[in-house]
């Protein structure tokens, strides 16, 4: 059966988090790899069931924090000792203990911004349009329902066979997701 290019994938709806995790596990054992699971709250097991890797986010935050730290200190050093040296009560121009609070705050600020912007960027947000929203029942993904979507890009995807497979997982409903 030929793949229809206008289809994004097939989506099965479940009522329990355990059912979704089981369905994801079984789909992976069946050989599907390009899929995503949607839930109204974070489920730790789901991420493992999808076979995802660790996120690079902690590294991004570390780099952001280090840049903030070095940048904050360099700014104060340059401004106080090079660009605008002022003798305040005989203190040295490079009076490092006085520079610590601002260096600390810059570290925090840059790390926090990297955490938030990094998370949004890695998640591809903001994303104004996504095919999964074409399924009307998907509105419940932010309330009390759990969804597994096997995408048409998956090499093993076949509209009929995949639908039959999803039906075996005991879902509440299987819907076709238009692209």
């Amino acid at each position, binding site marked *: 059966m030929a793949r229809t290019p206008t289809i994004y994938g097939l989506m099965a709806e479940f009522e*329990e*988090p*355990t059912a979704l*995790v*089981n369905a994801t*596990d*079984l789909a992976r*054992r069946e050989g599907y790899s390009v899929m*995503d*699971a*949607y*839930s*109204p*709250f*974070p*489920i*730790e097991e*789901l*991420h493992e069931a*999808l076979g*995802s890797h660790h*996120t690079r*986010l*902690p590294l991004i935050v570390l780099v952001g924090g280090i840049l903030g730290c070095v940048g904050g200190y360099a700014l*104060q050093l340059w*401004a*106080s000792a090079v660009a*605008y040296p*002022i003798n*305040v009560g005989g203190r040295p121009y490079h009076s490092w203990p*006085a*520079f610590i*609070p*601002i260096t*600390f*705050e*810059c570290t*925090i*600020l840059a*790390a*926090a*911004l990297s*955490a*938030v912007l*990094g*998370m949004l960027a*890695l*998640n591809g*947000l*903001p*994303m*104004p*349009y*996504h095919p*999964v*929203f074409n399924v009307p029942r998907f*509105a419940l*993904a*932010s*309330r009390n329902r759990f969804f597994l979507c096997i995408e048409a890009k998956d090499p093993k995807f076949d509209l009929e066979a995949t639908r039959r497979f999803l039906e075996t997982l005991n879902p509440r409903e299987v819907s076709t997701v238009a692209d």
Partner: protein
Amino acid sequence: MTERHEEIDDPLHTIVGTGKPPVIAPGHTFSTVTDKISAIVLTRPTGLGWYAGFGISFLLTLLLFVAVSYLVVEGIGIWGNNVPVGWAFEITNFVWWIGIGHAGTLISAILLLLKQTWRTSINRFAEAMTLFAVACAGLFPAIHTGRPWLDYWLLPYPNTMGVWPQFRSPIMWDVFAVSTYATVSALFWYIGLLPDLATLRDRSQSKTGRVIYGMLAMGWRGSAHHWHRYETAYLLLAGIATPLVVSVHTVVSFDFSIAILPGWHATIFPPYFVAGAIYSGFAMVLTLAIPIRAAYGLEDFITLRHLQNMAKVMLVTGLIVVYGYMTEMFMAWYSADKFEVFVPYNRLTGPYAPYYYALLFCNAVAPQALWFRRVRSSPIGLFVIAIIVNIGMWLERFIIIVTSLHRDFMPSAWGRYAPTIWDWSTFVGTIGLFLALLFLFLRFLPMISIFEMRTILPGAKVDEDLRVI
């Protein structure tokens, strides 16, 4: 007594066997939690109480606009502060507001790291409270500079004047600490809101609601990959915000302790200020939570357990603050420096002595009632104590600032301070601004984190016995 009556009738009072009230009432499911919290924003008719509350606080906000406008026109001579009391009301209010903010970050960050599930139903509005309190706090130093339109000189940027800010000054540290704090609190709050904004987008009946919440939700769809990064980011933010919350009031205390003024120049200041900040912050959370929970019928989510735990935090931080008072006294005596010895003597016998005794009553005596379970279990009792502590913590900052400044070294340079109508208008105006923002928040955003409430429901755990692989 009403609380006796409640102890018997309230089904939420205890979990069988533990003697502790639950963090969420039994019988809730993913859908009931979602519907109940989102209904406040989406479907429930806006009550007369909301309009009255918002109306009054908005009028007070207008008073703030008047006070600040007149200040800009006339200059800070309209306030009562003058040499030697140069700081007075404005810095008192600044420290008070910023201290209140600390409870929000503590609840969202530190309690998250400590895996305290009871934080879940109070973190959202505590964070909102933080943001609004920091907004009120930030206003004071800004208008206190005298020429607020030149405040941008505090920012380090290359300019044609060829000058740079003085980074050795605690005032600069303040600028960085407070602006970082405001930014990180806003990020934390917004990131926490993201999945709930998606819920509102999906549940909103009106087109306007769908569009606005939809834009704010950034297309959040609850993907497992997204949740994983989201949780990592949230945890990292909590880890980053934890040292931040401690640092902010430390830096605020540096404003005082770096100066050589007796009564300010003390190493106890940073821990003493941080404890005081958390103390006043929890008092404010209780002040807000108790009426909100009653007005919106949220007793299922903000249970007695939350109130009791907050009361315990208040008791502990209150005792640390009392320890700070004792250390101040002891160090003054132990220093054998007559100017230092004079500070507590002047506080106890000088012109501001009544305020000092009031402060001791509010912060040291009244909260001792929290040792009793009966008081901790009574919302009304807690509300009264929380109000007393709010007043006490304001008085504490007033005493620290005014009594230290008004009589320092040379009696010829001594003076007195009394607030003018404009000092009061500005202060009361910020309370109005704070409450007006809070009313808007309650009306337009979910005041309890819906998705986190789902995670603490029994059904949220994946049942390992039912796993197929």
